[in-house]
């Protein structure tokens, strides 16, 4: 086990190191001034440029620069956005939790909808219900997420008028920022219309979450259904049946666990997809998350923001993916090979 842990830590450290190197070298690869790309500051005069270059060690060798970059990264001094001149750490610490919140809910929805549906489809496969589940999964998997979001907006916001179409909560509710997770913040906030604000935030969450969750749910249904079908056809299930156990016993004691085990690493694979979809959905629903933030940054050619945003998101995804993979390997006794599942 220790061996395994070491291997995964090694993997994580190496991967993050590669990501840091990429983000560092991006400052040189992006068009424009390297100094601005690194610091986010546009020097107004030559003297200021020279001074800044000295600060960011641009006059020194590339290794010194990298070392300085690394120090700054660790100490939380991530530079400023070249378009708003606000500290990137501050902007990200506001935007990132919003995305995490959205993704978490979407993931939870996918898990609680996708996995049970997949199970039911897998157990009673080739029955009408299964046919419905499979159709649903294939159709939802085929929706381009941006179109889906627009359809949702057309139906639920514009036609029916049930749900709001932008933001996290009505701006009239002045929710103080503490954790960054809006529902949590509302619960902790000291504001008069707490309940209404909470419901309002919930209503704002529904459509973006649904848009992201649909594709992921479709994937989960497919994984789970396949997994349960494969697992329920295995020898040990038949052996258990021949021992006269009830279907329920077999399913809950053996089938369920064994078909869930391979799903976990597949779930890890979905995190990157979730982020991609979240980025698109955030721009459509004006959700103030990191995806929206990065896309606005590219529109404004805010290179420092793109660089750091990319690093933060990918390090987060890598860490999460590797951790899930480690857990799934640690709890799955039969899995002794290191491999990644395919989509």
């Amino acid at each position, binding site marked *: 086990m220790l061996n395994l842990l070491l291997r995964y830590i090694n993997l994580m450290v190496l991967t993050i190191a590669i990501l840091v190197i990429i983000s560092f070298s991006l400052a040189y690869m992006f068009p424009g001034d390297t100094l601005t790309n690194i610091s986010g500051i546009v020097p107004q005069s030559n003297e200021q440029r020279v001074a800044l270059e000295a600060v960011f060690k641009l006059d020194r060798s590339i290794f010194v620069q990298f070392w300085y970059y690394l120090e700054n990264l660790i100490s939380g001094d991530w530079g400023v956005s070249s378009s708003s001149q606000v500290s990137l750490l501050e902007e990200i610490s506001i935007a990132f939790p919003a995305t995490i919140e959205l993704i978490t809910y979407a993931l939870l929805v996918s898990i609680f909808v996708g996995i049970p549906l997949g199970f039911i489809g897998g157990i009673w496969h080739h029955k009408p219900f299964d046919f419905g589940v499979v159709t649903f999964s294939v159709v939802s998997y085929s929706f381009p997420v941006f179109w889906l979001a627009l359809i949702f907006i057309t139906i639920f916001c514009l036609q029916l008028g049930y749900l709001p179409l932008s933001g996290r909560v009505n701006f009239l509710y002045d929710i103080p920022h503490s954790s960054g997770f809006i529902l949590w913040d509302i619960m902790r906030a000291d504001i008069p219309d707490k309940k209404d604000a909470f419901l309002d935030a919930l209503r704002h969450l529904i459509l973006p979450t649904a848009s992201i969750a649909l594709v992921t749910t479709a994937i989960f249904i497919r994984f789970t259904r396949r997994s349960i079908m494969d697992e329920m056809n295995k020898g040990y299930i038949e052996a258990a*049946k021949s*021992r*006269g*156990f*009830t279907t329920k016993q077999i399913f809950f004691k053996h089938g369920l*666990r*064994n078909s869930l085990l391979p799903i976990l690493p597949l779930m890890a694979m979905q995190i990157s997809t979730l982020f991609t979809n979240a980025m698109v959905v955030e721009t459509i629903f004006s959700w103030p998350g990191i995806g929206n933030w990065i896309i606005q940054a590219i529109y404004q050619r805010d290179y420092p923001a793109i660089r750091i945003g990319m690093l933060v998101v990918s390090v987060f995804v890598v860490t999460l993916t590797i951790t899930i993979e480690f857990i799934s390997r640690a709890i799955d*006794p*039969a899995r*002794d090979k290191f491999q990644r599942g395919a989509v």
Partner: protein
Amino acid sequence: MPLLDVKNLTVEIDTGSVFVKALDKVSLTVETGEIRALVGESGSGKSLIVRAIIGAIPDHWIITADRLTWKGQNLLGMSNEQRRIIMRREIAVVFQDPTSSLDPSATLISQLEESIPEELLDKGMFWHRNKQRRQIAVGLMHKVGIKNHEACMQRYPHEIAADIAQKFMIAMALVSEPELLIADDPTRSMESTTKNQILRLLSGLNETRKLAILFVSHDLLAISSMAHTMTVLYCGQTVESGKVKHLHRRPLHPYTKALLDSAPSFQINLPPKSHLVALPGTIPTLKHLPIGCRLGPRCPNARKECVKVPEQKMVHQHSYSCHFPLHSPVDDDLENKQ
């Protein structure tokens, strides 16, 4: 009354385009305390018979039989629940690949304990029962010849050798104290010493507990060493059935003979490096079964009549299905009388 009585069992399976009779009027009985061997090569439908008996035939396959009874009760007419209870207490099955018949993500001991029926436990608090369970499980492990039970009970199936896994399977089968053990090729791909252990264990159980065993295999060596009676299958048809002794001494069906002759160990007088007796051709696949006697194209004695399915003929307890038996069955009969 036989314990298990199968008469003219026919199973038609879906090959994608048409339904094929994978089992064609197969008959089989197992008496109390008897070891019945079911012999056949791959594609003969041995495993299908096992599945028909234990009720693991997919719904869309067509299963018909004149009789498929367990102690006189009709298995086919039974509800799933009744059938499950019989499987739970009276019939046990051991499969050919022990490792894949065990849940890969549960420890061996937990699987063994799980298969102990509640009825065998005294009423008591759950910890009490848990302790009892453990005792029974350990006892069973000793019974099937797992000596160092401490070492392997907390293991996962993929961590142990095949023969130990098979012993676990047998232990699990024995836990409900069944009357019939169906052993579906339990020694497949085991080396001879471990195979012997399993075989010895099974015949021991047969002797001590009067446990009836339906032993399914193509390993003639194993069969002849322990079985009392045997039924030979070829491509889903019963070829010959009777006491092992009779079949060995005087096989009536060409296929039985070919099968017996294929093992060089049985032929003492065979000079080294000489030709073995072998039927020409190959076993047909399910989709391309010949009509009539399915051995037809490979049979050395085949004639025109063989396009008809031969009737099953019965001489004393020796039945065969062949238009042109190798010996006159009467001879056999006479010999018996002598």
